[in-house]
């Protein structure tokens, strides 16, 4: 699928076909997309995931995970759960990862990079090596790194024709159920499956006004939104019909009846 269409078609899908498994290769593609996403902090070892697959993972584990997600209906319906985590021990491999980047000439001497620079400047400097400084910044950057990967995984799922959504749950229970060590924090659970609702899922969701979010040159000075660009993105499928589509209420009622859910 074309990139702009993938971005435009992505929705948080809340109804899934529980009877239809997701092909294992599609799950792998989602994980590959996460792995290749930008890693600004160069600590790629911090963002890891545990995949729980209906019919493959022991049912008692899956059941406990769904319960830890507050037994939300979509968590029960979706056949795949990707439990994204932050593994803080991954920061300990930062030096090795930087040296790898030097070796493959991604980091170059032209910009001052050398093994000596890594050891004498980067590793002791909190702005580069978060473990050398404030723990709060380390956690903040770790969350940012993880979010980058998960964002990529969401789009990859859409590109594979799947529905996907992020859920949060009881983190401590999720950690225990999936056998995670204490230095690992489960962050978001990405559920994946074939949608039971239409791909539009009622239309593109509301967002704050563009010009209230982005500024030009100075905080508070709006970055002007060009209507011609908006038109172009509409024709290319990134900007789509906003929710609610006229038939959404009937769709929700039909889905509720299908799954025995309250309306």
């Amino acid at each position: 699928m074309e990139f702009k269409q993938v971005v435009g078609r992505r929705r948080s899908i809340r109804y899934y076909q529980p009877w239809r498994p997701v092909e294992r290769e599609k799950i792998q593609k989602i994980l590959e997309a996460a792995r290749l996403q930008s890693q600004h902090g160069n600590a790629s070892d911090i963002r890891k995931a545990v995949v729980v697959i209906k019919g493959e993972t022991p049912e008692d584990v899956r059941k406990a995970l769904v319960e830890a997600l507050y037994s939300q209906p979509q968590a029960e319906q979706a056949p795949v759960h990707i439990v994204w985590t932050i593994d803080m021990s991954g920061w300990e491999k930062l030096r090795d990862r930087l040296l790898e980047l030097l070796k493959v000439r991604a980091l170059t001497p032209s910009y001052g990079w050398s093994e000596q620079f890594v050891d004498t400047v980067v590793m002791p400097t909190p702005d580069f090596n978060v473990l050398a400084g404030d723990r709060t910044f380390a956690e903040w950057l770790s969350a940012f790194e993880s979010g980058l990967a998960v964002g990529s995984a969401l789009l990859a799922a859409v590109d594979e024709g799947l529905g996907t959504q992020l859920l949060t749950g009881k983190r401590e229970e999720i950690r225990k159920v999936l056998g995670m060590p204490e230095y690992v924090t489960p962050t978001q659970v990405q559920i994946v499956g074939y949608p039971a609702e239409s791909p539009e899922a009622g239309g593109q969701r509301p967002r704050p006004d563009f010009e209230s979010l982005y500024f030009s040159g100075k905080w508070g000075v709006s970055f002007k939104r060009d209507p011609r660009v908006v038109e172009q993105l509409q024709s290319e499928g990134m900007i789509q019909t906003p929710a609610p589509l006229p038939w959404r209420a009937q769709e929700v009622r039909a889905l509720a009846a299908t799954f025995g859910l309250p309306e």
Partner: protein
Amino acid sequence: MTDAAETTATAFYDFETVQRYAAGLEELPEQERAQRLGLLQEFSAMVGRTPDEMVDELFDKATHKYRKRGFYAGRIREFSTKAPGTWAEQNFRGNVIRSFFIANGYRIPLDKPPWM
């Protein structure tokens, strides 16, 4: 507890929790609205509590924890299965009550369809 069975329909609609639930039914045809409110009144009589009492005792606002969730889950299941009909028809009765609680901010566990 109030003798909810003796509450007239008009008085029943005056409960704050019922009004909150009814506000979400406005798009439904009048007959369906009446059916759902009737089922809620029937359930209220069955458990011997007014709608406001049901919501009030379900959740402990001081501890932010459910207090009688198991009780209501069980009574809703009983309310569903005491009527004749298919699983979907029975479940519809229970879901009306679950929707009432949802409209007032609280979730009651669902019963999954047999095919799930």
